[in-house]
């Protein structure tokens, strides 16, 4: 043995000496200089440009056609954040999750960088020449030219498309210019602009043509309504214009307002929607019973209004008759101040809804017809006519803008091959999506942040959309392309400006300073404010046509096993247009909390009947007659509150291009696939849409479900970061901790000091009182009566704070990084289930449990009450996360930041990008506090209340979040914290959080429905 030892001529000591010395040498050699960094100044300094300064550019959000006003935050020439424009009359400063995420879409590296001919990059000159030559040919032969696209809210764009298709009546010339300069563009003899919305509201518009003589989408004024009835209309989630609806809805629900107001909202629906979760009363109804329900309501109201009705058989109402009586009473008492919103795609049902609104005197009060909304203009009949024409080979040229029919329509598969047969197909898609891939020419439209444009989301409310940067690729706005093909090459700026000068300026709202009444002043003002009001032409609305109403068609009662498939858009992906945005894919659905997938929601009873649990893959077969040839295979999800005869599936998944997310997550040994068996994120449910008559229906009767036996677990965040103590760990005898506190309106009115424990002091504490807060003390109050759970704040926080995306697999391991999450709670209620949402973020506790377990002082308290997380000190013990009662700390298990040069332009330069192994959490947007503080110091003034808005507060369409100085009794947050509705979550721990909530108020009588969730 001893001899063996001598084989090694190095002793252990020698080895350690040498390696220690080697290490020392390596360290010494590392003491060189950090790499050379360059600093570039401007060549020509633009006027007003300040290096490192922030510019705010007023523009219009292009994430959907709702046309909300936004301000783009530009740092050193690139937009890094979008915020709602508080001056915009419709969106009122709010912005939804999709709008917040649009800035990431700008830097999407898969956006087309140049036009394509037959899939190959080409130069614009060549594309223009070829298209012009083909159009000339088509015009000579009188071929049919069709322009297919979604709703166009830009007046200039609409006018340009019309000019392109129909020709110029006279050369549009401005005074002083020759009127007949150049030849007229003659347009085409057979041209049509076919507008269709993949999330169609066609029936609603058609119904108004029948009842009021004009096909229009009215403007709803929910703020004026005292009673709101929603019928399968998810108006605060994804129906028409959710941000504007939410902002307006909030106006009618201010229990502490002057005078106090609290509208009564009843929602009838078959699946569980975000809007249903907000309702004071929510009733699950069978999917085909909307018409029956409306008939019952109409008959009751007609009786009260003494409107004679023919005797009809109404059938059995889908909800208890007593409930309907009560609702009719309430509606009738509030006539002129009530409204019925119906999301059905059946024209007859929509006509009945109009009749009810007519009986309630809603028109002219809560529903405006003279200032209609332009957000949905689609006409399904025209679409179905176009599909017929394409099938018959009658279309010579097809232009497709802002639509993806191959993906979105039930006959998408067929269209795919049919498009190839059209002589000229031009797509304006910004990505090589399902439709663009089939088009011969792809002329990518610039991103809305890259181009001039305009919007008129409602009659008389117009906005100029200003670019925030130059196009990143060789792309072009649609109107420039059309101008080029009309041989009138003009920049988008000139086109928009000229249209405004000719069409909008003459109708401006007058009454201002006469001298400043020039176009230049008007334009400057519109561009700076982001909006302008003008006199819109009122549509020729006729008296309500009573004869259009045909009540009495009652759906036959269906057997319990006749399942209906409901297809719905999600808040994040909508119709699939945002499927390529990883922020939105990772945003938990507000109701189900599932990320990165679509699924088949089933009620508990239906799931039990099938013998499936969450994550079991089921096969959904639907189709004409007995064939059932359309099949979807999706994991199941049990959804409380859903009607037993419904299976609900989200649209917008299974998009081409989502295969890129297959490599999103960290590459490690236990990684699991991020995409489904089809290689994509989710499954496209659009083949299950159905044409019924000539409207596109989002439901399918008589589907069959079978269990496949496979399992595909969903990445659902609901059970992650749970703050309820598991029973096995709870202190014996301790009651359930109430997280969400609610109060019925009657109880609140009778006794403004509602139930629940008093919050705050709990006697002597464990910790010394060593935080004097001599200056400011930052705090936040979240009003649960306002919060709808729409999740705009989650994405706003992600955009502001460089929160990384981790991918489906990591989400399944509870490793999502969102600093702000929205907890959803269900509770038993008289009508089924009550849903409540609660934004949950770092509470910046005074006696923070995280602070005293950190061994390296990486999380410490600031003198202004912020619980600071110091990334560079953090060694990753994760003690703090374990000790956090709110479970809001997030750990970087991997280096989640990616080296995508393009995408990383969306990073906020004011916030550190965290590396692997450190803890992070909400900082109350410390960078914004610091910025405001420095700016106040520079201008030598005090900080003003409301000047600092964290990203979550800024984006909230319902203005549910208030932030400010709790030490200043006059600040909004301090006033709210003194409200009788104020409470703190887990206050019994005596950790004295700086975040508090206002109890949710439901407009119901005490004892009606649940009071406390947990």
């Amino acid at each position, binding site marked *: 043995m001893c001899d063996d030892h001598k084989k090694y001529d190095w002793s252990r000591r020698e080895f350690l000496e040498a390696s220690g010395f080697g290490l020392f040498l390596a360290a010494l050699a590392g003491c060189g200089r950090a790499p050379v960094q360059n600093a*570039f100044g401007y060549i020509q300094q633009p006027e007003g440009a300040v290096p490192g300064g922030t510019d705010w550019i007023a523009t219009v959000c292009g994430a959907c056609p709702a046309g909300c006003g936004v301000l783009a935050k530009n740092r050193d020439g690139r937009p890094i954040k979008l915020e709602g424009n508080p001056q915009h009359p419709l969106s009122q400063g709010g912005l939804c999750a999709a709008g917040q995420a649009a800035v990431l879409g700008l830097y999407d590296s898969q956006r087309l960088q140049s036009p394509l001919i037959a899939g190959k990059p080409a130069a614009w000159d060549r594309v223009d020449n070829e298209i012009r030559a083909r159009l000339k040919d088509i015009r000579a032969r009188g071929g049919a030219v069709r322009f297919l696209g979604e709703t166009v809210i830009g007046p200039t764009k609409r006018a340009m498309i019309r000019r392109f298709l129909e020709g110029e009546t006279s050369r549009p010339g401005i005074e002083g210019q020759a009127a007949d300069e150049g030849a007229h563009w003659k347009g085409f003899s057979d041209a049509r602009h076919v507008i269709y919305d993949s999330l169609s509201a066609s029936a609603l518009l058609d119904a108004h043509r029948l009842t009021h003589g004009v096909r229009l989408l009215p403007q709803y004024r929910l703020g004026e309504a005292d009673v709101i009835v929603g019928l399968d209309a998810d108006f605060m989630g994804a129906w028409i214009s959710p941000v504007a609806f939410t902002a307006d809805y909030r106006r009618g629900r201010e229990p502490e307002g002057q005078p106090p107001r609290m509208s009564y909202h009843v929602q009838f629906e078959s699946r569980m929607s975000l809007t249903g979760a907000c309702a004071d009363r929510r009733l699950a109804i069978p999917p085909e019973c909307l018409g029956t329900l409306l008939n019952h309501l109409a008959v009751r109201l007609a009786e009260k209004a003494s409107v004679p009705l023919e005797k009809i058989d109404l059938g059995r109402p889908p909800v208890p008759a007593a409930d309907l009586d009560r609702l009719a009473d309430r509606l009738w008492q509030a006539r002129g101040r009530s409204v019925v919103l119906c999301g059905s795609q059946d024209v007859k049902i929509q006509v009945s809804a109009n009749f009810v609104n007519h009986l309630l005197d809603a028109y002219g009060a809560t529903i405006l017809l003279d200032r209609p909304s332009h957000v949905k203009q689609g006409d399904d009949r025209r679409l179905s006519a176009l599909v017929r024409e394409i099938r018959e080979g009658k279309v010579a040229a097809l232009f497709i803008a802002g639509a993806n029919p191959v993906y979105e329509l039930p006959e998408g598969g067929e269209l795919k091959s049919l498009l190839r047969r059209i002589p000229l197909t031009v797509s304006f898609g910004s990505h090589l999506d399902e439709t663009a891939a089939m088009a011969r020419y792809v002329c990518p439209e610039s991103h809305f942040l890259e181009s001039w444009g305009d919007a008129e989301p409602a009659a008389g409310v117009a906005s100029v959309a200003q670019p925030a940067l130059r196009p990143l690729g060789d792309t072009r706005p649609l109107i420039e392309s059309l101008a080029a093909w009309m041989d009138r090459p003009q920049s988008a700026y000139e086109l928009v400006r000229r249209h405004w000068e000719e069409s909008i300026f003459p109708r401006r709202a007058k009454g201002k300073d006469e001298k400043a009444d020039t176009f230049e002043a008007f334009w400057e003002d519109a561009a700076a404010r982001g909006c302008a009001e003008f006199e819109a032409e009122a549509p020729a609305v006729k008296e309500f046509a009573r004869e259009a109403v045909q009540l009495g068609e009652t759906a036959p009662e269906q057997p319990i096993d006749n399942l209906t498939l409901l297809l719905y858009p999600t808040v994040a992906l909508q119709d699939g247009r945002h499927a390529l945005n990883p922020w939105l894919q990772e945003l938990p659905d507000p109701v189900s909390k599932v990320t990165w997938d679509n699924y088949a929601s089933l009620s508990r009873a239906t799931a039990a009947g099938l013998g499936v649990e969450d994550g079991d893959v089921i096969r959904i077969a639907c189709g004409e007659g007995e064939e059932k040839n359309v099949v979807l295979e999706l994991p199941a999800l049990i959804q409380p509150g859903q009607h037993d005869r419904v299976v609900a599936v989200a649209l917008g998944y299974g998009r081409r291009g989502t295969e890129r997310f297959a490599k999103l997550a960290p590459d490690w040994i236990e990684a699991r696939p991020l995409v489904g068996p089809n290689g994509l994120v989710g499954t496209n449910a659009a083949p299950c849409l159905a044409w019924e008559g000539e409207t596109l229906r989002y439901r399918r009767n008589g589907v069959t479900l079978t269990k496949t036996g496979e399992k595909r677990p969903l990445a659902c965040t609901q059970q992650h970061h749970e703050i309820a103590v598991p029973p096995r760990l709870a202190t014996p005898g301790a009651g359930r901790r109430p997280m969400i506190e609610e109060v019925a309106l009657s109880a609140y009115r009778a006794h403004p000091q509602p139930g629940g424990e008093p919050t705050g002091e709990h006697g002597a504490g464990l910790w010394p009182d060593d935080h004097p807060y001599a200056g400011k003390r930052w705090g936040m109050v979240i009003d649960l009566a306002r919060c709808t759970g729409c999740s705009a704040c989650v994405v706003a926080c992600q955009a502001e704070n460089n929160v990384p995306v981790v991918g489906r697999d990591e989400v399944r391991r509870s490793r999502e990084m969102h600093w702000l999450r929205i907890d959803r709670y269900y509770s038993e209620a008289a009508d089924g289930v009550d849903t409540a949402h609660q934004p949950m973020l770092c509470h910046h506790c005074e006696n923070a449990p995280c602070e005293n377990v950190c061994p390296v002082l990486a999380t410490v308290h600031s*003198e*202004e009450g912020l619980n600071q997380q110091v990334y560079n000190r953090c060694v990753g013990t994760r003690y703090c996360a374990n000790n956090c009662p709110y479970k809001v700390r997030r750990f970087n298990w991997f280096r989640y930041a990616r080296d995508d040069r393009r995408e990383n332009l969306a990073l906020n330069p004011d916030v550190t990008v965290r590396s692997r192994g450190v803890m992070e959490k909400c900082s109350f947007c410390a960078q914004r506090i610091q910025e405001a503080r420095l700016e106040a110091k520079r201008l030598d003034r005090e900080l003003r209340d409301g000047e600092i808005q964290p990203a979550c507060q800024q984006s909230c369409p319902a203005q549910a979040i208030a932030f400010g100085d709790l030490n200043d009794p006059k600040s909004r947050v301090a006033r709210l914290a003194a409200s009788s509705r104020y409470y703190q979550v887990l206050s019994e721990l005596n950790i004295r959080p700086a975040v508090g909530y206002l109890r949710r108020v439901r407009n119901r009588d005490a004892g009606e429905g649940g009071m406390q969730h947990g």
Partner: protein
Amino acid sequence: MSRPIVTVVLVVGLAFALLALGFGAGSVHLPANRQDYEPVQPLAFSHRLHAGELNIACLHCHGAAEKSRHAGIPAASTCMNCHKLVTAPMAAVRAEDELAQKEKRQPRRIVSPELQKLYDSLGLSLNEKRELAPDPRKPLRPIPWIKVYSLPDFAYFDHRAHVRVGVACEKCHGAVETMERVRQIGDLSMGWCVNCHRTADREGINGAQVHASTDCDICHH
């Protein structure tokens, strides 16, 4: 392996390491400490001449320091306020004048090689009349200055608050007016910042009471 060989290898290693370190550096620093960093800039701009001899105020060119986080590098167009006319050092102009007098001709405009770099960045050339004019063949190119004062990405310094309360530029940047080439004087370590904050909070700046916080989130967010 015998001991002498090991020793020789280690000594050679040490020599190499010291040699590597010695090149381009006067003293030994920990990684990322750039004290005394004095890189050669692409254009030999002299702060001694401009700020010292000509007595131009710092904020004349670095005006953003008053209103932004960055003091900013002046745009090439800012230099042109003077260098439209001043194209060469006085000595060179005088020499040309004398030469012209001797040769009995009009003095020609002289452009110094360093200022030529500025004109190149602006895409300017001397035309046939020896005037500076835009040259379409020349692309516009910003001057790739080398950053001297550089903070790590997780630390955020803001000039405006410091300028506002009257912290003199030389407090952190030293006597720039004596430097031909700018040299980093402090080590920009956290202690260096915090010590000053503590003193300022205690003693004020120029006799005025200030609040210089030492909270982490002031600089790290």
